[in-house]
């Protein structure tokens, strides 16, 4: 017997009667509330991610510790076989013209991650690219990009973007941002160029008839990488002006996208990142304690108010 928790079935029916939702949607929602349909999709997704993360970490440790005993060629061959098996499963589904399940998606992701580890290890052992070893990351990004399109996988596209970002030297560590005298300015420029590259890729994807579902992946990665790059620039004394100009441009683009497409997440990017960056900048530039605190408080309040307003407008468009 099903003993459900709080049920919103009556409310779903009421929404259907009012014409807010269509009858099939209401029937499905009611079935979900009653428990006659129950999807474990998210639980499976979580379990699959944890499993792939464990295997990838294990492979990383394995190649780090055991290559002397196993030998690089054997290790590279074994990893290549393992990744080939993962790709073969995805190819089989593709040839059978079936839709890949969430399990198939994660097996493919595992294959891509093994390829990344394998190629990186091979390059570290054989130095095919010599001093230009960084190019292996671009090769990796291209390979994952091609397989992402060939097999229509957003997860593999994410690994491709990660490899591309790594080629640009983006570490994704917050500490680097505050390393003003060190790598922060370079990181900032590289991150912005990387974000620009992703936007060009997205435009090409649209023009050349690529998959629509890839667009949001490009946009979200570009927004986050771009804003972190701008933050790094704003925290660098010599590049603050450039950083502020780029911050304004990026924020305007994000907010425009949020308002035009009704995508709330871009309103969040366009306001939260700006408020955070301005607070950091104010703390660096203004020395007087009370003034900077009041200014930062005003910035945060303004950011929250702007986000509230934009959120409503974006939601109205959605």
């Amino acid at each position, binding site marked *: 017997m099903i003993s459900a928790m709080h049920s919103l079935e009556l409310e779903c029916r009421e929404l259907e009667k009012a014409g807010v939702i269509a009858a099939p949607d209401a029937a*499905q929602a009611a079935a979900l509330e009653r428990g006659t349909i129950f999807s474990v999709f998210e639980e499976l997704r979580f379990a699959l991610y944890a499993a792939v993360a464990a295997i990838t970490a294990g492979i*990383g440790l394995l190649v780090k510790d055991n290559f002397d005993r196993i030998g690089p060629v054997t290790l590279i061959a074994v990893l290549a076989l393992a990744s080939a098996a993962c790709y073969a499963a995805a190819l089989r589904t593709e040839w059978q013209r079936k839709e890949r399940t969430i399990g198939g998606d994660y097996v493919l992701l595992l294959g891509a991650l093994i390829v990344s580890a394998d190629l990186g290890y091979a390059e570290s052992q054989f130095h095919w690219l010599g001093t230009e070893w960084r190019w292996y990351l671009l090769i990796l990004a291209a390979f994952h990009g091609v397989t992402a399109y060939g097999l229509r996988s957003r997860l593999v596209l994410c690994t491709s973007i990660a490899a591309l970002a790594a080629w640009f030297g983006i570490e994704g560590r917050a500490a680097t941002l505050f390393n003003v005298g060190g790598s922060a300015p370079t990181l900032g420029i590289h991150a912005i160029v990387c974000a620009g590259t992703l936007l060009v890729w997205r435009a090409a994807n649209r023009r050349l008839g690529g998959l629509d579902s890839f667009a949001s992946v490009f946009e979200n990665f570009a927004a986050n990488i771009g804003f972190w790059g701008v933050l790094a620039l704003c925290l660098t004394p010599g590049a603050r002006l450039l950083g502020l100009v780029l911050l304004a441009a990026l924020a305007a683009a994000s907010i425009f996208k949020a308002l035009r497409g009704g995508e709330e997440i871009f309103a969040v990017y366009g306001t939260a990142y700006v408020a955070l960056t301005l607070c950091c900048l104010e703390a660096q530039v203004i020395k007087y304690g009370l003034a900077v605190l009041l200014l930062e408080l005003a910035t945060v309040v303004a950011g929250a108010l702007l986000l509230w307003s934009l959120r409503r407008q974006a939601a109205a468009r959605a």
Partner: protein
Amino acid sequence: MAAAARLKVRNHPWITQRTGGWSAPSFIARCAFFVLGVVACGLTAAVFEILSRGTALLAAGVTLLAAAEWLILRKRLFHAGVEEALWTGGLLLLAAHFVSSSGDRGMSVAVALVLAVAAMRLLNPFLLTLAFAAASVAIELAVGHRFWGAHDVSMAAGVFCYGAGASALLLARFQFLRPSHDHMLSWLMIIMPLCGFLWLATQLAPAIRVGTGLASGIFALVALIAGIRRRSHAPLLACMASLGCVAYQLRDLTALPLKLKLIVWGSAALLAALGLDRYLRTARRGITSHPVGEGTAALDLVQWFGAGALSPRAAPQADAPFKGGGGGFSGGGADGRY
């Protein structure tokens, strides 16, 4: 409002007319508002610290509470994030003003009470879970070490956490008027057994390892049965979290090195998940592995960034040791470390 949020029609005019002016943003916006609210709390406290040194915490606390109540009562914000941060921050500052001299134990009790009051006022499951976690700290400081003397075992705190999780699992059988109450129990049943495990996980004594392993195993089993019977996600997630605890306690079952354990256990979990995915492709008693209804954007984002984060740290060098897997966001950067 809960039904409208679940069906993604919260901004429909029909809904807006009937919510009495109350508004609640989406989960992602709520998180952003909460972060902005927390920053505002810290800045307000710092401003008052400069303006009125002696009564800074009191003044800041009262100001933040007043602002939060104004947002709730006048602007009718519900689960908007910002009022939750201001309300909790304000009450915590008041507690810090009045209880700061009573030591760690008094402070932890005060924090637990403040978080519990805030959770009830705001119907916030996250705050209630934090309140229970703070209560376990208070118990640990009060009585935790007396059970095992020199062994320094946090038994009381651990038992309290497991008990809270089990009670939440039991209470979730009943139907409550508000969905928020269900969410509170859901968070407690997932997080508290983990907290209980963490209190005891560092202990290497065989009895404690067996005990925590058994407790987590039994909890996982009960949660699994409850999740399937009730068609509820929270017990299933609690089951998965507890199974992770069991796996951790079984780490010395074999003499395999860590890397092989990760690969073997990871492969086992992968195969089990794939098997379940395949088995449930055809719905069994209504349970299916297909996504039903629209997924949440927040989970998709987490999945994408998570996939990017799994990419190996790049940049091989001639003599550098290899380090794959588990890199930070966007790989690891071409910086010479591998």
